[in-house]
């Protein structure tokens, strides 16, 4: 079907990709093996640095006491809630701003300040206002994801081709029709991209919130581990978080591929 040259070309691509994957795999294996050897030879203090075996033991222990899934679920649940709420609220506020340029101009400096403010600074206030519970955590995550959503989506709305708006007006469209038939579909791709940023923003917010207040979740596990000086628990928490972050990232990547036009 293909010429020999093309077959060679394809083979080379496959070879290169395989080499990349292999290298990636070797790095993580080497890292784990060296870590374990250093721990076995007592070259590092396992009380501070833990070891792969101990991390695995901790995960198995968490699995046996059934706590593991509880913590994972709480963190994932909080992240999803903040992600959905943050995206929804963000798009609604961006819509209001597009609809009413006066409001947009008035709230612009407040948005800019809120965006540059490290949200963790608001942590203590959030705890006092909404209590040491899941509400505070979601609020924290919302603060982080919503503002960036508003700014990104509003930017997209404002950048919609003026000539297309002119066309809509020449066809006699009212503002609602311009919004539903032009602004929204024209910004479909940029909204999907915003979702991608948003899911990691929500996860950051949730872990930050769990650090500050919480009784369960991966952030709590890591914080609790450090307080009782159980570094095995801390590192186990971080490893699980890595895996969850990766799964979420690839999920959104898939959604993006599937739905982007």
């Amino acid at each position, binding site marked *: 079907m293909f010429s020999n040259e093309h077959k060679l070309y394809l083979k080379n691509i496959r070879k290169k990709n395989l080499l990349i994957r292999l290298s990636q795999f070797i790095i993580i294996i080497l890292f784990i093996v060296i870590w374990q050897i250093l721990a076995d030879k007592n070259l590092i203090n396992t009380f501070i640095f833990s070891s792969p075996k101990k991390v695995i033991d901790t995960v198995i222990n968490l699995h046996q006491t059934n706590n593991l899934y509880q913590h994972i679920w709480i963190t994932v649940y909080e992240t999803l809630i903040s992600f959905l709420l943050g995206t929804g609220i963000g798009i609604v506020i961006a819509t209001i701003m597009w609809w009413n340029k006066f409001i947009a101009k008035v709230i612009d400096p407040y948005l800019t300040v809120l965006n540059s403010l490290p949200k963790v600074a608001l942590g203590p206030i959030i705890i006092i206002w909404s209590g040491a519970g899941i509400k505070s955590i979601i609020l924290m995550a919302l603060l982080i994801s919503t503002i960036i959503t508003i700014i990104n989506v509003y930017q997209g709305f404002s950048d919609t*081709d003026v*000539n*297309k708006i*002119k*066309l*809509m*007006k*020449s*066809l*006699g*469209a009212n503002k609602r*029709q311009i919004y539903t*038939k*032009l602004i929204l*579909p*024209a910004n*479909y791709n940029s909204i999907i991209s915003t979702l991608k940023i948003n899911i990691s923003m929500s996860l950051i917010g949730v872990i930050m919130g769990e650090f500050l207040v919480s009784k369960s979740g991966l952030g709590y596990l890591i914080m609790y581990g450090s307080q009782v000086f159980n570094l095995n628990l801390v590192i186990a928490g971080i490893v699980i978080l890595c895996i969850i972050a990766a799964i979420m990232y690839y999920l959104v990547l898939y959604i993006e591929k599937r739905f982007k*036009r």
Partner: protein
Amino acid sequence: MVKNVILKIKNMKKIYHTPKNEILAIDDFSLDLLDREFIAIVGPSGCGKSTILSILSGIENLSSGKVENKKNSSIGYMLQSDNLFEWRTILENCLLGLEINGELNDENKKYVLDLLETYGLKDFINAYPSNLSGGMRQRASLIRTLATKPDILLMDEPFSALDYQTRLAVSDDVYNIIKKEKKAVIMVTHDISEAISMADKVIVLSNRPTKIKKIIDINLSDKANPIHNRKAKEFSYYYDLIWKEIDFHV
């Protein structure tokens, strides 16, 4: 045959305001458009030609003066770029105006389908704009404008985005469509040949503030479609006449 005036523009004036100053864009512009008449407006670039069309289509307000729509004719506006929505198929794009006006019914849809078929886009009704050539896109844009059955067509440099060959062919196409559908047209262009080959009357505008400098009736012997008209023996006479009137600053 005496044709009726369907659109009367009286002393149109338009001022643009910026924080630093005001700009008189159009000053005292008056024009009568007759039934089925084809008027071309030419003038130096940036002289406010497009503004006139925007005002007539109702997108912009005029500062003073009057536009009398004698027979309450509906107006369609064909913009410079085709502005087809990439996420809609050609048919969906052409139905946009009907959707907006709440006039999307089987009868109107059939009308649009017929237009698409008549003007060579039948095989592309379910294609997306990115799959069409520049000339086809421009035809689709015209059909979108015609879909709402306007009596008067406003065209703002409708062919300027096309290369020269396509431009000639498409202006021929569009001209035939307009004549067949019996529309009155006001077309803005900077292309003198295009104006002479298509219009019954050419209006030459001055630099800003835009005023009418000269109105030239085009009487070609053996008048037919635009490509043919370019060969008329009066063509160069009119070309020189208009060329001398336009203030080009290089």
